[in-house]
């Protein structure tokens, strides 16, 4: 179910679609959750995307930037994003309230290769805001639970207050069809009941794995990749079954502006999902 690379606007892929913020709240001090719906109801219902794709969000007067879609395609109608306040566009997005309008373009990019992952074990490793793109595929797996074998989630954050979707992931721990391990680098509350340490300290907790039938999906800050990839390679996972989703500067999403170019590929067309083999092969990816 790879992304179709078809923009919502068929004649001019640069023209956004007005979308309304349905719900917004803080996930952490500087990360906010946004649930949006395309203002035109007919278009809202026909908007199709795949787990791992991204959208361009614009705020009038502030500009446009790419964001991973955090919601699952298995629940159409609403799109969800988690956005960290870091620059001009995100600052403007943070000032918006429920019922305000944004511009939306997309969906863009490839996606996680769901068909290849069917009947396989799935290990999802997320660090910090890396949960934003991976939540989409996690929820997709849970909504289609019978299509996948063992599903494991490893999620690391700096401190308990900085763990995005904390409540959502805690409630996943109640489920008996999913292994969910959470860790914080440092517990400054004294009330943290889960693991303490970086996300790689969760690896010893993994059940015995069957490497050739396992896919791992990784997203997190650059420093995390280095250590997590090492663990996964040590577990003998094939390099093309280790998937990661990457961030780049983008101005168009449709392979024209050039900013996300790496070697001969464009992150917006050929990514943002890459395998570890791609990363070794192509330089500059991470």
């Amino acid at each position: 179910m790879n992304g179709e690379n078809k923009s919502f606007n068929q004649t001019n892929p640069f023209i956004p679609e007005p979308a309304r913020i349905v719900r917004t709240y803080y996930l952490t001090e500087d990360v906010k959750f946004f649930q949006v719906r395309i203002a035109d109801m007919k278009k809202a219902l026909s908007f199709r995307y795949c787990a791992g794709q991204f959208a361009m969000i614009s705020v009038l007067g502030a500009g446009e930037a790419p964001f991973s879609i955090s919601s699952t395609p298995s629940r159409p109608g609403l799109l969800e994003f988690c956005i960290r306040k870091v620059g001009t566009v995100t600052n403007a997005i943070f000032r918006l309230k429920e019922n305000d309008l944004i511009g939306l373009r997309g969906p863009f990019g490839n996606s996680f290769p769901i068909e290849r992952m069917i009947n396989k074990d799935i290990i999802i490793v997320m660090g910090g805001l890396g949960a934003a793109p991976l939540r989409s595929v996690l929820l997709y797996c849970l909504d289609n639970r019978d299509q996948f074998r063992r599903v494991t989630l490893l999620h690391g954050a700096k401190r308990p207050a900085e763990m995005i979707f904390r409540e959502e992931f805690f409630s996943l721990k109640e489920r008996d069809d999913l292994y969910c391990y959470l860790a914080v680098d440092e517990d400054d509350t004294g009330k943290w009941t889960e693991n303490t340490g970086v996300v790689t300290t969760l690896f010893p907790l993994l059940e015995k794995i069957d490497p050739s039938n396992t896919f791992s999906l990784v997203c997190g800050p650059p420093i995390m990749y280095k250590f997590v990839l090492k663990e996964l390679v040590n577990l003998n996972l094939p390099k093309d079954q280790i998937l990661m989703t990457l961030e780049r500067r983008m101005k168009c999403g449709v392979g024209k502006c050039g900013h996300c170019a790496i070697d001969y590929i464009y992150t917006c067309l050929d990514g943002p999902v890459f395998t570890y083999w791609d990363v070794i092969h192509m330089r500059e990816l991470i």
Partner: protein
Amino acid sequence: MRIVKLKKENLLPFLEVISEKADLWAPVKKYNDRHVFKIIEDYSQIDLNCTSTILPPKKILLPPSINMFKATEKSYEEDFSHVSPNILFGIHSCDIHALLIMDRFYSYIFDDPYYLKARKNTLILGHSCWPDENCLCKSTNTHIVEEGYDLFFSELENNYLVWIGSSQGDDLIRVKPASFDENITDNDIQTFMRWGEERNKAFKTEINFNAMPDLMELKYRNPLWEKLGAACLACGSCSNVCPTCNCYNVLDEPFLNEECSNIIRCWDSCTLENYSEVAGGENFRKKSADRLKLWYTHKLQAYISKYGKPACVGCGRCIVTCPVDINVKTVAKALNGEDVDAFWNRFSKEVRK
């Protein structure tokens, strides 16, 4: 291919007639023997005795800055005011090849209506040329064209051989059919063939572009990139003058007293420092050397591996333009193991003055 003959004295009258309903762009002398494409009002200004113009024809199809649309919160109004009927006369083979590359690029997976509409409204009237010391088009195999033009004028002694490359080109001929002669003599053919042979001999520089993908790969970590990076002024001029550079930036320009913005698209360059910077200040190519690697990977390696030919069409504009001699010629030479300090020669000479 249909080929006809036009007497030289009939050229300007022909151009005058066909440009009644469109802007005619042609090379005009600007300064120091450098030419620019300009809308022609006075036909005597046209100077066909020129090599590459300062800016390539991309400036006509996608000007340095265009308004893509006017945005309010609720609606978006497309703006195609940069699109108007154009006739591009006097465009050389290398630039036609560049347009073919652009055509492919702008319709790859997603169609870019801002380019494609402008392109559809532009007639390409090519003109033969004679290489100067910077022309590399024979090495890039772009010194002749077989497609991508509506008409192509090959200059003989007193005539032009006019190659008709499209149905629109054929329509143009029919505007003034009496000027064109279907009868091409053996003598004309001989003159044309001789001209081609002599022109082939006139190229002064030859670069083996086929070796570039391997050399780029093998020398990816070579210290020569650091030397280039140290010399590069990160001014972006090479991208501005390159006929196949197409990167752009997008700006949101709000109106002061209305709740709307113009969304502007303007030329950008991957050699500029903030090109790959993402939110939060992370910059994937902070070093000049890394950005130059991207530029040259794209031109000399990526495109060759993907399409079998370089994204460089050998126009030589970067050679003329770069103030510190970082260009396709010197980089290719450096990759070939020749004197890497060549880049500094002109620069240091000027400093010494």
